[in-house]
């Protein structure tokens, strides 16, 4: 007995199951994407509050900070966003090795930014404007950079998760929602710094207070 009819029917059934699974996954990604953006919007309200408080409390002044260091850490975060985008693009096109390499570079640059702000800028700033409790200016500066640095650290943890998942082959060009979510979170952290950088380093007259 020929089985061609049966096998064709069987193949059709398997194709249908795969198609249904793919549709269900796409529907789930659509929902998760909306959820992620709602989270990003809600988190941006907190950063917007800090941004507005900087102008309300400091007006036309700003803390005396190292311009060179500010430009360097900003460039490092920008470069990390570029490599994050590259990592996402590469996994979308099935290049796992490239994805892992770019994710590692993003982690390294993120750590570089964190070290630049917390271990280099903070002590320098403290010598000019005092510690976090010294004045409204220092409170605003340490709160803005501290909250942002906290997000950088959580972003690095998220990046480590997708790196190890990627090493275990969990992502494919068709299924890599977690990489997209991590990339969006990392770019959001970059967008926040895009506003914080001019607000803290460029706008206003620099003021050094007695520590």
């Amino acid at each position, binding site marked *: 007995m020929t089985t061609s009819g049966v096998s064709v029917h069987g193949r059709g059934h398997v194709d249908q199951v795969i198609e249904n699974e793919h549709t269900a996954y796409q529907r789930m990604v659509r929902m998760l994407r909306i959820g992620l953006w709602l989270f990003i919007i809600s988190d941006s309200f907190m950063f917007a509050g800090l941004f507005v408080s900087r102008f309300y409390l400091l007006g036309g002044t700003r803390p005396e900070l190292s311009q060179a260091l500010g430009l360097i850490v900003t460039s490092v975060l920008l470069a990390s966003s570029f490599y994050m985008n590259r990592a996402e693009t590469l996994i979308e096109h099935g290049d796992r090795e490239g994805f892992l390499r770019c994710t590692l570079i993003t982690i390294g640059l993120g750590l570089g930014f964190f070290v630049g702000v917390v271990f280099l800028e903070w002590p320098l700033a403290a010598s000019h404007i005092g510690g976090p409790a010294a004045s409204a200016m220092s409170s605003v500066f340490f709160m803005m950079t501290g909250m942002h640095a906290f997000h950088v650290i959580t972003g690095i943890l998220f990046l480590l998760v997708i790196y190890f998942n990627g090493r275990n082959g969990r992502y494919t060009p068709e299924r890599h929602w977690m990489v997209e979510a991590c990339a969006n979170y990392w770019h959001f952290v970059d967008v926040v710094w895009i506003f914080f950088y*001019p607000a803290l380093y460029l706008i206003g007259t620099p003021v050094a207070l007695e520590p």
Partner: protein
Amino acid sequence: MDTISQASARKASAVRKGVVIAVVLAVLTLIEFVVGLVFPNPWILLTLALLKAVIVIQFFMHVSRVFAREGGH
């Protein structure tokens, strides 16, 4: 059916797009830095920041995917 060369051309194009966007962001950051040192007008600086943010949100965060009927991937 995609050929391998078509797939690699698509990948190269997507990577190139990322490079172009990064260069634009780097140039805007440099302009921002120079404006901040020479002529620190808050409105110019905030406009430059807004422009950079829009570029990142549109091209790196792919905000348009939220409104797409297809799930992507």
